[in-house]
């Protein structure tokens, strides 16, 4: 059986076959095989739980970014109303960066959701197969001679073994993907802790590293457009509420 999945199932199968060859009493092997299957099923459940945890973490990050986007947009509007184009620009640059990260996080959350669903479905299928194996093994124990039982149970065990190997492969793929997402999530966290998404009330007077970084991100055109639209909508320099807090743009 070629192919990666094939190779994996061969590994499991040969283990089961070896156990079967060694055993003098097939019914012992049958019970051993069944217990091994239940053990592996626990690993599968743990794997699924890991995927769910990763997804929740990404979701929380995405919720946080979403709040930042709203906040920065509000602040940009307030800054425009007060004629503080510099502050508005800074807020919009941050908003653009946050939005880009948000989109990529949302895509990843959706992908993980899909994987989670298919893993859960396959786990259910595997559980049914293991249950079938349990029933079969009792029948085999009761009805067949030792030699016949060997053959019968090899078939059934290999069938379950293949199912497990396949689920193992699906778990591996999901884990690889989660690993990539974890790296991505840490990168976003680093940006966050460096202040890239902080609201503009936290900004110091001069250009800091974040501002220079933001300027390099080429958000320029989009920021210009958005700023122009905001100005048109609000009418620059009109009477507007002051910035929420730490308002450094307020005329003295």
């Amino acid at each position: 059986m070629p192919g990666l999945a094939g190779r994996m199932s061969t590994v499991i199968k040969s283990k089961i076959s070896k156990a079967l060859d060694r055993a003098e009493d097939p019914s012992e092997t049958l019970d051993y095989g069944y217990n091994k299957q239940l053990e592996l099923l626990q690993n599968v459940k743990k794997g699924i739980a890991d995927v769910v945890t990763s997804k929740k973490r990404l979701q929380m990050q995405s919720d946080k970014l979403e709040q930042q986007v709203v906040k920065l947009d509000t602040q940009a509007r307030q800054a425009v109303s007060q004629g503080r184009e510099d502050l508005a620009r800074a807020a919009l640059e941050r908003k653009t960066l946050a939005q880009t990260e948000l989109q990529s996080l949302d895509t990843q959350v959706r992908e993980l959701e899909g994987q989670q669903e298919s893993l859960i479905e396959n786990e259910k299928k595997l559980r049914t197969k293991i249950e079938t194996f349990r029933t079969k093994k009792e029948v085999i124990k009761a009805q067949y001679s030792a030699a016949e039982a060997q053959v019968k149970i090899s078939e059934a065990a290999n069938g379950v073994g293949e199912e497990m190997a396949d689920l193992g492969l699906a778990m591996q793929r999901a884990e690889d993907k989660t690993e990539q997402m974890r790296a991505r999530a840490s990168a976003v966290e680093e940006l966050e802790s460096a202040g890239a998404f902080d609201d503009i009330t936290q900004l110091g007077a001069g250009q800091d590293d974040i501002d220079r970084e933001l300027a390099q991100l080429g958000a320029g055109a989009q920021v210009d457009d958005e700023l122009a639209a905001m100005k048109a909508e609000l009418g620059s320099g009109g009477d507007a509420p002051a910035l929420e807090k730490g308002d450094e743009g307020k005329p003295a």
Partner: protein
Amino acid sequence: MIVRISGEGQFRLPDEDADRLNELDNRAVSAVEQGDETGFHELWSQMLEIVASDGNRLGDDELLESDVIMPPRDVSFHEAKGEFTGDGLIPDS
């Protein structure tokens, strides 16, 4: 014949499909060897199409080994390089 699509489950197909699948399989190997990604994906969807149109899903209570294990439906070209080599998924007798 019993075919498994990795991550999806097993399907029972008429034995006549083996030749058709094998031919597509061999062509997929050449496509991978030549780095022809578009060609590979075209052949791959034809293989999936055969399973979809002719295959009957095996019941969860059937414990059988597959004759052929196909990679996951969304196999990437990069992953395919590890699967579609030599005889491909189906050994040529």
